[in-house]
């Protein structure tokens, strides 16, 4: 039994220490935003934020997360009160099938937390590990820029979970 901090809450986890975080999130805590894409750390659909950094949850065993803060998309905002990154993706209609988008948003969020005004080139370089087969890359790019502008005007504390620092 181990304690896992997700979106500011402590969870008692029964899974074995070598269980990938993605399975714990989806199967045990029932947080389904992070997606299973390849299971090999090659597509980015499972991206979550751990202590401020984008991490591929399908290749991150539970035992590496002792004492760390995990943030999933559910921790950023809700349907009623979407976070700036979610609003921006909706406003730019950046999702087509949407399967990659949770991972895209998490990696973009991690980028914006350490660089509030990234250039096009910086966004492209950062999001390179995340694949999108529908081809909405240009909209995703615009959405990340829009999120940066929204975050500048928004009150960050009301939209971003406290654990994401």
């Amino acid at each position, binding site marked *: 039994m181990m304690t896992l901090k997700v979106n500011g809450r402590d969870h008692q986890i029964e899974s*074995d*220490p*070598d*269980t*990938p975080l993605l399975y714990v999130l989806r199967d045990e805590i029932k947080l389904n935003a992070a997606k299973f894409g390849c*299971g*090999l*750390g*090659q597509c980015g659909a499972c991206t979550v934020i*751990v202590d401020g*950094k*984008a*991490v*591929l949850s399908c*290749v*991150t*065993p*539970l*035992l*590496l997360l002792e004492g760390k803060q995990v943030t999933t998309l559910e921790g950023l905002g809700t349907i009623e009160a979407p976070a700036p990154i979610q609003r921006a993706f909706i406003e730019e209609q950046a999702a087509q099938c949407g399967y990659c988008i949770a991972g895209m948003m998490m990696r973009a969020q991690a980028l914006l937390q350490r660089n509030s005004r990234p250039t096009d080139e910086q966004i492209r370089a950062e999001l390179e*590990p995340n694949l999108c087969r529908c081809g909405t890359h240009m909209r995703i790019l615009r959405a990340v820029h829009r999120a940066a502008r929204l975050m500048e005007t928004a009150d960050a504390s009301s939209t971003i979970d406290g654990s994401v620092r």
Partner: protein
Amino acid sequence: MQSNRPLGLPRMIAGVIGVVVVVGAAAGFAVAWRPAIAAIELPAPSSFDPALVKRGRELAAIGNCNDCHTVKGGGSFAGGLPVQTPFGTIYSSNITPDVQTGIGRWPEEAFRRAMRSGVNRDGQHLYPTFPYDHFTNVSDEDDAALYAFLMTRPPVDAPPRANRLSFPLDQRFVIAGWKLLFLRRGLYQPDSTRSAEWNRGAYLGEGLAHCGACHTPRNGLGAERSNAQFAGGDVDNWQAFALNKQSPAPVPWDAEALYVYLRQGFHPDHGTARGPMAEVVSNLSSVNESDVRAIAIYMADVFGAPSIDDRKRGEAVLAQARSPAPLTLDSNVNAAGASIYAAACATCHETGRALPYGGVNLALSTALSSPDPRNAINIVLSGIRPVEGERSPIMPGFAASMNDGQIATLLQFLRDRFSNQPPWSGVEKMVADARQSQPVLLQTSSGSHDAPRESMRREKR
């Protein structure tokens, strides 16, 4: 009064010293001084034979010129790459035909002199970070082709950056002394007892391809140690593995495996080229197949024929890789390392799928059998980036999800499970050091982005 005093012994000694200094200075001047070669008007690109330019392009790829003479985001061959040496930082020069900042006003004779003896058109000595100790063997014809290729590149206005060296190394005449000690000039002399292919490979491998510049250890003056040729060296915080009898490869290399590896960037029995070697194989993928094969044949001879024991060990490792023993977590002393391996690594590295779609079985990994853990550390931290436009191995980096202690734990598990070598020491500290050097490492190893456009695509099979 004083003028009437006879010459005393001290004055005689002073006189002798004075003469020695003057003669020494004259001799030093004679050794160090090189004349400038008159500048020419920039030749029109159309004045070069296209066939010669094409040959020059392949030779430049074999010479890996773009790797040092191009920075990320900069113009191809425009220089400016900082090369860290134990003596300070030296910046690569602009070898585009720009008339102000490049070699646009160099006649072919000046280019050949630079290749042969490390002197620029003005007569200044060049630092041996430019590997003229290898390029000195390049033939007149090949120098002419390289010159034709470079003089037909787009000129880039990129002024040279000032080297950061301390006195007296910032004085270029010092290099003349280095050359006296270490530069052995002379064209390649074929060995008539060997095949034409072997000789071609030796000419390229010892010369233009300058394999030893990374794979041979250097002495205190920064020169390759001639008594330890191909015994392994250091480059950009990576270990360039030994390519002689001391090779740590679990499966002995042969010419065929070397050819495949150099040509496509990975080999199922050996793994993937990465770090500074990634750029080398990217370049070699675009050149004449027979030249890569020649280099492979020569380098296989440098490795030497494996002993019967080595061959048996290699076969045993291959058998182990084909049907790996099941991973048992409970009985393992390093349970944490085993757990990390099971979740983070085994999903690719123990599926039995061949490269590039599966990960190489780590029993085949040279990095894990090497006495130096740095390559394994670098690869766990930053992973392997895909090569644009082709099927190539890919691996995520774990810098964000594992701390130094966790990476050290994992690596000790891998070392224990996949090699027959003793544990490494000081791994955790080396992981911390590797993180510090990562910005530099990523800059110089992101390879294919810097390659000239025409050499970026590998042939498709």
